[in-house]
């Protein structure tokens, strides 16, 4: 096993080189973009007041880190996103389990779910404010509303596509429907759950930002809206950059968890 053939070595080497090249190109594009942006504002091709620039964003981050307001806004948005995400998972798992145990209930609710899932949830946000007030509760509800219906549908169809013979096995061992759910359906659907979670974390962030646009005094969504109203466009663009970083961070966290789980199998 320890002697690897020359052709195999060449193959591995070539593949590795390709991957490195790919990474380099990506980084170069990013650097090129930032340089052009910076130069364009410095040379007054575009107005830094409206378009900001990498250096202005860094300065802005630096200043806001010192007065502590940036970390507060980031913290609030993260807290609201994670709480919505957690509630989405709990709600959709609960609903999918109920539907699997009682398919009749699913049949009744199926068309409603489809409608609610395709409805643009941002249309609901103003309603939530009227009903629930301008507070964290509204933002969490907005975050949940964006993802929860799609999540229920994907989890339920994951549950429903579990091998019928595996469920029959539980019955032949003297188990009931609840045993089948506990021993086969849920553990067998963990890959589906993980991929649904990856979608949901992004959607929860979308919902929270929509909520913060309308009903917040804190958070990156608030910072974006407030910044645009007082023409502090550095704030707006900085918040967008930070949102990018948060989105990547949360996604890769779940991606790691998924890879780890699949590897453990």
């Amino acid at each position: 096993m320890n002697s690897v053939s020359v052709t195999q070595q060449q193959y591995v080497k070539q593949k590795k080189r390709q991957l490195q090249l790919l990474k380099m190109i990506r980084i170069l594009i990013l650097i090129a973009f930032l340089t052009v942006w910076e130069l364009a504002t410095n040379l007054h091709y575009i107005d830094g007041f409206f378009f900001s620039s990498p250096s202005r964003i860094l300065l802005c981050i630096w200043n806001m880190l010192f007065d502590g307001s940036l970390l507060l806004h980031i913290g609030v948005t993260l807290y609201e996103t994670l709480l919505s995400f957690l509630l989405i998972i709990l709600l959709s798992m609960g609903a999918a389990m109920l539907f699997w145990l009682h398919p009749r209930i699913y049949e009744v609710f199926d068309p409603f779910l489809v409608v609610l899932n395709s409805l643009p949830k941002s249309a609901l946000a103003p309603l939530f404010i009227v009903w629930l007030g301008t507070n964290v509760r509204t933002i969490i509800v907005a975050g949940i509303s964006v993802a929860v219906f799609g999540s229920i549908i994907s989890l339920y169809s994951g549950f429903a596509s579990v091998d019928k013979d595996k469920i029959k096995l539980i019955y032949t061992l003297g188990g009931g429907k609840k045993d089948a759910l506990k021993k086969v359906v849920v553990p067998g659907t963990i890959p589906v759950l993980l991929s649904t979670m990856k979608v949901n974390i992004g959607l929860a962030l979308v919902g929270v930002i929509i909520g913060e646009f309308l009903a917040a005094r804190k958070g990156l969504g608030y910072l974006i809206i407030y910044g645009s109203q007082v023409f502090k466009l550095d704030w707006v663009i900085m918040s967008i950059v930070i949102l990018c970083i948060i989105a990547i961070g949360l996604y890769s966290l779940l991606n790691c968890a998924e890879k780890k789980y699949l590897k453990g199998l």
Partner: protein
Amino acid sequence: MDSILKLTDVGLSYHNMNGETSALHHISFSVAKGEFVSIVGPSGCGKSTLLSIIAGLLEPETGTIAFENPKGTIAYPKIGYMLQKDHLFEWRSIYKNILLGLEIQNKLDEAHMALVDDMLITYGLYKFKDKKPSELSGGMRQRAALIRTLALEPDILLLDEPFSALDYQTRLKVSDDIYCIIKKENKTAILVTHDLSEAISLGEKIIVLTKRPGTIKKIIPITLSIENRTPMKSRNAPEFKDYFNLLWKELNS
């Protein structure tokens, strides 16, 4: 001979909005304690349905099933069911897979655990008990599936083409293996298969079913002039070929 299981005039149809399909019709036979019965028939003749009915997973529409124990009192014996595939769960170790039935029935007591350990040692899986199913060969997986079934101490074992997912060579070996385990544990077994040689080499009695709706065409007792019968040896018995031809004719007439 004491019969442990007696089916009388069992029938079942499947229903959907487009009409009904009769799956089984007038099925009557009995199985003696310790007997190994093979059921053969063309595909779609309701073989698996028949096992599901015996296992109590499906209710027959007509007829009755009686289980009797040797003392003559009617009682439901425990039934073990082996499916086509082993269905060992990849998220559990072999040991945890084997304990699945005991877990479901809340029987994780010392006596049952000891029984499982005994079987693991006897059937050569003890060393592999902490492995994942994918690390085992097809034959070992099928043995693990059998121990999972036997852990619940069934009186009757139902085998639904348990070897059909294996390649031919493994299949011969595993059917030898499983047969010997079943005989050693002194269980009654009903095997469903579409492989005629397999039916003859394992069965002491063969029930031939007709095309859908499945009815009993013939019941053929198998007597082979060999000692210490195993499926492998049975294939070399002088009568084997004649039984094969007889079955072939029955299925094709």
